[in-house]
């Protein structure tokens, strides 16, 4: 049981790394227009697929976590999601009055902010429950 828990946790970490390993090069290649349009579409889809697999593995890892860890993850995700939704709402409202800064708040940056907010939530929740 303990072994299978470790395996499932390791798989989610491996797929997180795999996603990072596909997302960052894909971003660079697409940004610098290294590849032609038909292939660029495939290149844009690959990180999404690896992310979907990572999420699947993460959900599997959640299901075998003990209840304290599950609570920590749940709160981290709630905090991360709420802060991301608030940021998106604020950016949308600011864009309505022609106030936007794509240098710092583009779609790409939002992905980064979303992860940042999740880790903030994780840190807060870990502190709260002392785990």
């Amino acid at each position: 049981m303990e072994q299978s828990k470790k395996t499932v946790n390791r798989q989610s970490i491996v797929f997180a790394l795999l996603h990072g390993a596909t997302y960052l090069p894909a971003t660079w290649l697409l940004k610098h227009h290294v590849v032609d349009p038909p292939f660029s579409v495939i290149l844009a889809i690959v990180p999404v697929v690896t992310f979907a697999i990572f999420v699947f593995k993460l959900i599997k890892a959640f299901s075998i976590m003990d209840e304290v860890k599950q609570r920590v993850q749940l709160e981290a995700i709630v905090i991360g999601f709420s802060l991301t939704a608030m940021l998106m709402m604020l950016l949308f409202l600011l864009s309505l009055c022609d106030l936007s800064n794509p240098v710092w708040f583009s779609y790409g940056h939002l992905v980064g902010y979303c992860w940042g907010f999740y880790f903030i939530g994780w840190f807060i929740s870990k502190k709260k429950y002392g785990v």
Partner: protein
Amino acid sequence: MKNTIKVERAKKNWTQADLARHIGISRQGLNSIETGKFIPSTVLALRMAKVFNTTVEVLFQLDDIEE
């Protein structure tokens, strides 16, 4: 919510890691329950009572303010 996990653990001369292993949670998770930061589920409370050969009421009590 108050609990007597530490007392029951001492009676058996178990460490947090020992009890955590018996009830199938992490040591940090058990520490969180023992210090009252996290309220366990009914299943976990019953599992804990079973390994101590006692009842949930002995292990967990409402605070005076909660009663």
